[in-house]
């Protein structure tokens, strides 16, 4: 039974692993950047499962980028270790910030986290001795000297790791803690859930993932800069992916990430100067007509076909 349930996952991972054998460098790059955004989408959703709308995604992404690049340039450490350091710094900073701001809820928490990216980028811009100031820093060479297949596998590993963490969140007591906090915080508290501790924990873990994604991205493209590393794209695209796929789940953001990643690349080719408009329109339409996302739509369709769940009609 357990083995049977694992088959689709193993097949999916294997298929993703051998994809480079079937395609060229261009598709590998598209898939790689899609999976970076997908990782951010999933981590954003993981925080949302606790009911907290976080807009700090691009902030922790940029922070992780800078931490990884600066440590790598200073110490010549293995790139993987510097990427892990990026995650560590993002997670540690999130813990400290979380201890202060996770007493806020709803709009107040959202706005506070939105400010983080600006704060981080202004601070880094004004520390030229450390961070390279407005120009940022370049790496002597990109990771794997730009070998697209190896880069693809690296990012795939990151995406799979995030999926595993997300599934741990969904299948353990963490799921019931976060859902109860989201549904009714007073009930959660009076049922013994240490609400504040769980929120700090989730904020730290998801921010660390965003930091790791940032560190990876920086090593792949070989530079950091205040504008590039803290771009709002690292917030808005993941958010749109999660909304399109369906929030509060692992597979919604993954599905939305794959669909929107492919679609945005296609649009970029078709309409080089107006693709963001079409992209925006898609998000509006989805939010209006598919509030549960693709995952919600599929589930509703499954319910209408009883045999699909193995039940007798």
């Amino acid at each position, binding site marked *: 039974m357990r083995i049977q349930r694992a088959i689709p996952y193993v097949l999916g991972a294997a298929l993703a692993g051998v994809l480079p054998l079937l395609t060229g460098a261009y598709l590998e790059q598209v898939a790689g950047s899609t999976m970076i955004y997908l990782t951010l989408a999933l981590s954003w959703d993981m925080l949302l499962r606790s009911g907290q709308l976080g807009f700090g995604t691009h902030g922790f992404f940029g922070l992780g980028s800078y931490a990884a690049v600066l440590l790598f340039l200073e110490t010549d450490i293995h790139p993987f270790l510097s990427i892990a350091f990026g995650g560590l710094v993002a997670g540690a900073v999130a813990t400290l910030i979380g201890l202060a701001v996770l007493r806020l809820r709803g709009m107040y928490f959202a706005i506070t986290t939105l400010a983080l990216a600006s704060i981080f980028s202004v601070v880094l811009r004004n520390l030229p001795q450390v961070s390279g100031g407005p120009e940022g820093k370049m790496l002597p060479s990109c990771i794997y000297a730009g070998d697209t297949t190896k880069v693809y596998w690296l990012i795939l590993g990151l995406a799979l790791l995030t999926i595993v963490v997300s599934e741990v969140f969904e299948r353990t*007591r963490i799921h019931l803690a976060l859902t109860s906090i989201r549904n009714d915080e007073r009930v959660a508290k009076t049922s013994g859930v240490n609400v504040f501790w769980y929120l700090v924990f989730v904020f730290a873990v998801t921010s660390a993932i965003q930091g790791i994604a940032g560190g990876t991205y920086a090593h792949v493209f070989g530079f950091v800069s205040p504008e590039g590393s803290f771009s709002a794209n690292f917030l808005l695209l993941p958010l749109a992916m999660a909304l399109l796929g369906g929030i509060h789940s692992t597979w919604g953001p993954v599905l939305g990430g794959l669909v929107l990643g492919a679609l945005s690349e296609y649009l970029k080719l078709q309409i080089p100067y107006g693709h963001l408009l079409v992209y925006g329109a898609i998000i509006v339409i989805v939010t209006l007509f598919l509030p549960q996302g693709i995952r919600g739509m599929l589930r509703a369709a499954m319910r209408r076909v009883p045999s699909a769940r193995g039940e007798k009609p």
Partner: protein
Amino acid sequence: MSVLRTEALERHFGGLVAVHDLTFELTEREILGIIGPNGAGKTTVINLISGLYMPNGGRILLDERDITYAPPHERCRRGIARTFQLVHPLADLTAQENIMVGALFGQRQSLRAARRTAAEIGRLLDLRAMNRPVSDLTVLEVKKLEIGRALATRPKVLFLDEVMAGLNSDETKAMLASVRIVREQGVSICVVEHVMSVIRDLTDRVIVLDGGTLIAQGPYCDVSADPRVIVAYLGEEETC
């Protein structure tokens, strides 16, 4: 032997005195009623004891240990559970998972043990359809579910905030049966209720609040004949 005791409990909201100089106790396996007119401070007392509000003065003792300023999840783990006046089922979870939340975090059980606890409590309270989302449940089932989740924390003291509100007479009977089952588990129960027949049938003793102050206490039959209680709340003498 008192399980729960408050000493000179005090809570103000700005200039409004919600609870004033409230001293009462709850003994083992007792069912205590809290009655009084709207705004008398009944729900505030529950919020103070369950930790959602912090008092401005006084003390709360559970088994003679001071929990006056302990955070709510801590109090739950030490044995205080409650339901809410407006039912608050956890909407994105199944009935079973709702109960599991209490066992997982109130009792710190493992997932497997919590699943077993939830099944046991479901049987105890005659809750069917444990695997359905709570949106499919009837009002009675949702109210039982609230009690089940509270019971899953294995409380010493359970506060029921108007669990009978909105139930018809058959449902009320079923609910009364559930509350008695809970008492048989060795739980002391404190009910806030406006349905006097329920208070009469269920409670060993009542305390009467008016304007945040305790104005009478004792068995319901004695209290309901007290002129101060009649003036403040009942309006006319209730037959006993």
